[in-house]
């Protein structure tokens, strides 16, 4: 009677514990994935900023090429500048989204 009820309560608690543990592991996985993506984006952002700096140092008539597959395509300096800037903005936006996602995960965690 008492023992069965207590063991039932115990089982109940155990199940709860399992679900909580699962949630925890899921959250942790999400967080780690988030970290990885964020790392990638951060590196790309850094690289693009470097490219922008170098492009700014180039003279107006310098030749700029872009590697598209096996082809080196000649690009206009202004065009290249614009492209790089757009890419930087895009990456920063993505990074921001992932950051907020991570914050949400941490919130859940707590």
């Amino acid at each position, binding site marked *: 009677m008492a023992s069965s009820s207590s063991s039932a309560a115990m089982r109940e608690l155990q199940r709860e514990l399992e679900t909580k543990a699962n949630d925890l592991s899921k959250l942790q996985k999400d967080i780690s994935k988030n970290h990885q993506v964020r790392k990638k984006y951060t590196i790309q952002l850094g690289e693009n900023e470097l*490219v922008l700096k*170098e492009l700014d140092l180039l003279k107006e008539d*310098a030749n*700029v*090429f872009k590697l598209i597959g096996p082809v080196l395509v000649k690009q206009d300096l202004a065009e*290249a500048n614009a492209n790089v800037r757009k*890419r930087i903005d895009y990456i920063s936006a993505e990074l921001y989204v992932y950051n907020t996602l991570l914050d949400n995960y941490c919130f859940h965690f707590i």
Partner: protein
Amino acid sequence: MQEPVKGTVTPLASLFPPEEAQKASKRVQDALADRQSELDRVQGFIADNTALVNLVQRLPDELHHDIMVPFGKAAFFPGRLVHTNEFLVLLGEGYYAERTSKQTVEILNRRGKALESQVDSLKAMMKDLKAEASFFDATAAEAVEGLVEIREDYVEESSSERVIETGPPKPDSPRFSGEDSMKVAAEDEEYARMMLRFDELEKEELAAGSGDEHNEADVDHSLSQLSGDHVLGSLEERQVRKPLHHSKDEYATTEELLSKKHFEEDFANQLKSKIQLEGLKEQSVPKDSDDVSHGKSFANRATQSSSRGKDNIQALPTSKAETSVQSSKPATDGLKAFTGSIVEHTRNIQMNPREQAPSSSQSSGSQPTKPVSRFKMQRR
């Protein structure tokens, strides 16, 4: 002795279990290893960069170079390298720029600088990790040794002359009490030495008839010398000694005078206490009663002492020979941290009449007649 102070003894092992400390230390070391490999990589890049800079600088020396051109995966054929000043430099993200040799070198230099800043940040991180690792190692070792943390209540000592040995927790093992007795024993020894010295100084002083003002300063100086010479020259002990010597000074003075002239000794006592008051400005209680009784002679004494040259100061510290005028002073030394009697200046008025009584009986300097300070240090 000091009243028993309550405290707690916590073995460090309970606070920082050794296995866990070791695990933590290992974790930190792994992180350290990661950083180290990263550092090596970046330094490799820097080396490559410098090599490339050299190459790029050498190429435009010739109009064309004869080289072996790689063809496919495993073949070369002889060829020529032309346009030796034109470089297609990768800027990043698939972007190339055509640059001359000099411009390429500039780009490479900028890259090199960025790499070096990366190296610096990595090194800083590694330093922090190393500090952390060493802390963990030390803690693990201590916990294994069985070190204990002793925490005792801080007994608010109204007298600053007392060496505060209790109080802040010290991560010392049972060596703690050993150190104590060691200190005390050494202090006894030192005390004896100092008393001998005092006697000698007093003799000289009396012979010169100098002011106690100088004597005090000298005793200060000689005391600090003594304590400096001694192995346990800790700051605490010096603090102990500095106020200690005041009492010893007066003490010794009294002793000397007792054995010599009883009349003059009264003067000396009065004088010293007066000058202590004046010189140290500790008390504002005027010694009116004494002044009245000893009036002019007192004033004379004062002027005499002040006019005393500095010769005594020189004489006293230099002569360190210990005489055998060792009286029974160190009787109260025993096992106390504080091994002297404290003679406060406020009590001088009361104490002096008491001093005069035994002095008039001309007893050779012995302790029991010494006034007991209100802190009753030596009576514990």
